[in-house]
């Protein structure tokens, strides 16, 4: 049984990574969005680095959240359209494990690149030096939470034609704790405080999401894909 659980996870992880590799443009678009929107901030607010430094942490987090939100919409969409989602639902494996595999692949193709690109944005928005490491850590954990929570919304809206907008309505309220503790980690570090406690809470949120979200996604997929 343990073997089949793991194989469900790794098979779907590999499959989705391969698909993402073949559609590289699609995978890159959320990263490009992340970088592009950051250009709007100096244009819309101010190019002065002192003022940018104050808001940089929050802005990077908001943009990362929006970029994840835009990409999570497609998590189950193509599988639903080509019927492989139904194949997934009738596999003998426990459904949460393949689901977790898909979410891991989503994080590896969106959350992780966003995290790795964030120092560049930090540079452009003149983030204080003390903020870089906490930003990397908090984004890595936080975007994983965002992918997991977003997957619940994606599963609930997969069979709807205009699911994308609805998905953001459903998911944004659930994202609030992540953005609170994510930005707090960075601002704590900039203010010279111990930034590990908010990061630890982010870790707790991640642990809870890993345990609970795949179950909710599996339940939601069984309902929505039947229609």
């Amino acid at each position, binding site marked *: 049984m343990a073997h089949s659980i793991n194989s469900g996870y790794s098979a779907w992880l590999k499959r989705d990574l391969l698909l993402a590799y073949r559609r590289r443009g699609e995978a890159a678009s959320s990263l490009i969005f992340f970088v592009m929107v950051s250009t709007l901030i100096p244009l819309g607010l101010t190019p002065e680095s002192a003022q940018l430094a104050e808001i940089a942490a929050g802005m990077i987090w908001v943009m990362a959240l929006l970029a994840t939100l835009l990409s999570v919409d497609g998590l189950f969409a193509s599988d639903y359209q080509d019927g492989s989602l139904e194949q997934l639902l009738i596999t003998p494996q426990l459904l949460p494990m393949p689901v977790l595999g898909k979410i891991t692949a989503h994080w590896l193709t969106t959350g992780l690149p966003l995290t790795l690109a964030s120092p560049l944005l930090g540079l452009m928005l003149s983030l204080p030096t003390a903020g870089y490491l906490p930003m990397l850590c908090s984004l890595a954990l936080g975007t994983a939470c965002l992918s997991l929570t977003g997957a619940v919304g994606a599963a*609930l809206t997969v069979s*709807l034609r205009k699911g994308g907008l609805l998905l953001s*309505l459903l998911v944004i*309220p659930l994202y609030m704790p992540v953005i*609170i503790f994510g930005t*707090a980690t960075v601002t704590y570090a900039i203010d010279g405080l111990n930034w590990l406690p908010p990061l630890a809470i982010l870790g707790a949120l991640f642990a809870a999401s890993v345990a*609970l979200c795949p179950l909710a996604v599996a339940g939601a997929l069984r309902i*929505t894909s039947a*229609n």
Partner: protein
Amino acid sequence: MSWQWFHRLGSPRWFYQTSTRWLPLLALIAAAVLISGLVWGLAIAPADAKQGNSFRIIYIHVPASFLALAGYYIMAIAGAVGLIWKMKLSYMVMKSAAPIGAALTFIALLTGAIWGKPTWGTYWVWDARITSMLILLFLYLGVMALQYAYHSIDAASKAGAILALVGTVNIPIIYKSVDWWYTLHQPATIKFTSAPSMHIDMFLPLLVMIIGFYLFYAVALILHTRSEILRRERKTAWVRELIEPEARS
């Protein structure tokens, strides 16, 4: 045998017919409690030493906030009952609870804003409780939007129930994190010192109003559920008979 009442609840018809008998009485009690609470709170209770008469909005604001939060749990529990025991009626209760709860959340926010102007000099501040209420409103709107998005009643019910349950798990986390966020950013100009314990003459009408709001909520929920029953069961014989009695005979 003792579970018979529970299984009866699964029948929309039984609920409709029973509530027809009880609803007028319940509505009468709710109206009586609300009116007496309002008169007591707005006219008889003493004015606040610092805020004068403007504090009296508390008699709407606090009960509405109570019910806004309780309503979400009622909705989520109804959804869970539907998922677990596959009860049609509880999905109808869940669907009805969403707009009522959203309206109460909105009333709580609105009265809070109106109250905030004379007290703090501004309609809106990003206070922890206000922000949590706003997020609660978003959660309600999400459940409502999801329900309306599906054509199939079955899918709408189950998807709404899952979302409501996910929200239930999140509400304590959201409340705690917003609380924590607020202590981090608490502005110096506005201080929310904990209110001194209310005088009993002010508190008793508030208690009456809270009970009145609970009763009003029950009446509103039952009314809404009844119309939902009629809408969903419109093709059954008993609803047709109810609407056009002579057509049957």
